[in-house]
């Protein structure tokens, strides 16, 4: 049964990792604008997939 305790601790550590990742993303501003990315996603790349649209990324 000791293994349950160990597993619980592992699962907690992993879950906490995701929590921290979420908070970091939040602080980065990734959740500030939830609308524009959904529209941006639908833009086609130019001509036969030869992309001219440079992704600007965060700045």
């Amino acid at each position, binding site marked *: 049964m000791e293994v349950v305790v160990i597993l619980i601790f592992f699962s907690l550590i992993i879950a906490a990792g995701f*929590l921290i990742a979420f*908070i970091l993303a939040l*602080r980065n501003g990734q959740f*500030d604008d939830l*609308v*524009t990315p959904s529209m941006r996603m639908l833009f*086609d790349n130019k001509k036969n997939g030869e992309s001219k649209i440079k992704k600007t990324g965060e700045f």
Partner: protein
Amino acid sequence: MSNRIEKNLAGKLIQNAKPVCVHCGDPCGKGSLQENDLYFCCNGCRAVYNLLNDLELDDYYSIEDKPGLKPNRLGAEDRFAYLDQENIREKLLDYNDGKVARISFSVPQIHCSSCIWLLENLYKINKSVLSSRVDFQKRLLSVTFSINELSLKDMVILLASIGYEPEIRSSSLNKKPKDKSFRTLYARLAVAGFGFGNIMLLSFPEYLGFDSSVAESYSFVFAIVKILLAIPIVVFSAFDFFKPAFAGLRQKYINMDVPVSIGIIILFGRSLYDIIFLNQAGYMDSLAALVFLLLIGRLYQKKTYFSLLFTRDFRSFFPISVLAKNKDSFSSMPLDDLEEGNRILIRNQEIIPADSILITGSGKIDYSFVTGESVPIEVNSGEKIYAGGRQIGQSIELDVIKKPSRSYLMELWEQTSRVIEKQQNVGTLANRISSYFTPLILGLAFITAIFWLIFDPTKMMNSSTAVLIIACPCALALASPFTLGTAQRLMGRANLFLKDSTVVENMARLTSIVFDKTGTITQSGASEPVFVGAKLTPAQKSMIYSIVRQSTHPLSILLSDLLSETEIKAVKKFNEEKGKGLEAEIEGFSIRVGSYKWVGAEDNKKIDKIDSTTIYISIDNDILGYYRIANLFRKGLPEVISSINSIYSTALLSGDNDSEKNRLSGIFGSDNNLFFDKAPHDKLSYISSRIDAGEQVAMVGDGLNDAGALKAATVGLTIAENDSTFSPACDGILMASGFRLLPQFLKFSRDSLRIIKISFLISFLYNTIGLAIAVQGILSPVIAAILMPASSVTVVLFTTLSTAFMAKKRGLL
């Protein structure tokens, strides 16, 4: 690619009888241009189209149909010259190291995905743009560019040349720090949710009643983990409740956060004691669930409409700089430096930033931002022009008589800001209930403690803390956010956008509704000349049309629009006297069109003098009658007013004269509450006096002249024709299309308050059951973990569903 699009567009044009501009979609009337198969409504549109095509940016036209905006290239060099001034530039830029600079612009024109696409591909138009990013909801464009290659002024001109002229106003100079409260709330919610899930999981053995020796041996380990998980919830997530509770207590006021905070602290303290000293399970699961649910309520309540601005003051309306005379030439000068006596130059479509006197040129001032009245007013030299008007036509020179910060409207604004500080949240129903509820609960806990102290001291702590835990008004605290939040969302769907959800509750408490006239109950921009007198013959009509189309006076234009279907006759000896009227000879008849005096009506006893805007007509000295310029009332106005009249007391405050008194008293039922010739500060003091008399007043207005009254009112609503109309600071923006629903909105807000009251009853019911258990000292963690979330979930479901139901019943959905 571009060929395909052109074919497509050409195909569309053949189907439509009337060609429309391929760039902006406006119908191409006179002066339109044709290039191959493509039509353009103006040169500007063609230039943008060709520019984008040359740069292979024609995808702009394939993402959305005809997304373009008419570029305004008019005097761009001069208009943006102030951006070359270092102090202004540095204030506007977010970042500048001399090579690379970053700036955020407000670009209200952004309206579709094509806009996003084009603005994010700015670097293809100009290589000095490094990157650009659009925030669609906030209509914000951030650009990073090489400032040593491309000056800020050229950057703005570039945007203006493709139709996206950014809005740079005085208020852009004082940068406000970004609102990050959403981020913090998300973070608090995430921590609480994380703790909630894991604590629940660790509590399962207790829920299921495992008491085998194995589970027993680990229960202490689990309990310690629960404490570790609960600490961030109490310290970080629940901070949102401690802070307002503490602030309320310092002002000697018990708000809803006080009992919530007491509940959280007692829950945590009691659980710590139980786990560490008694080796029991504790109530950490209930604690986490409570904070998590309450934070969801907070998030739900926090609905904001990013694209609408509810806090605009006068500064967000005025330009940053004006052209002021410096020795012999005009150069741009920041508005803040403008002094009395400065000579300024105002060109077509520019806003007059300060109260001033017209020196040269003829002023045609559109005060629609100020009064809502869109017919421009003519101003002759030597006359006063108030700040906030927009010049239409030729350039004019003005002498400033008051600094912009001391202009009439600005002073009025400052005055209201000082006097009125709306007591936000203090009077809400939830907080009022809390101020009775909290002492009651504390009293009950105290009595329980005394009781058990006498009969069984071992149960004293146990039962009195249980009372405080179970009484924690979680459901009570959720009722308001969920009802009001839902109401706010549903009203938004029906085109009434509220600043925040507390406005719904203020709306429900209203006792009287005060309307502004021009632009509020009348349609702005729609006025219709009505002829009073004998019926005109077609020949007379065509004579009138022939003469008025010679003139550019706004009233002439109005008349010629009305009569444009008629035939044009040859006009001889045309003469226009400023401020008087027109005269000419047509087919041998001498025609005069103009003022009362101009047609010689003074000597004619039969014709009454009318105060409102009128145009008299005479042919061969025979006065046929006059055109009265009547404002068109909004559709459904009589129904709206009579419906509101049955519940509220109504009033009308108009800045105009009382020429329409009779028409209006028919609509309002009486003329007791119709007030005319009210200056902005009269409106403000009228509202304030009624509020001082204990009434809850809503002001429905539109222009800057209502700004003071809107701010002073319990609820200030502005009416907007579309979402880019300027609206002064207010609590809510009602789209003109939703005007006829106004009575329904008011009724619905009352329904919402009723729903809150019912859900309070529901949560009291749960509380009574819980308290009955708690006072006996037999509250187990499992019961608490079931009872508390159950009551919250019931309340949340009840409020959201019944609010949606009522909205449907009121015809808002």
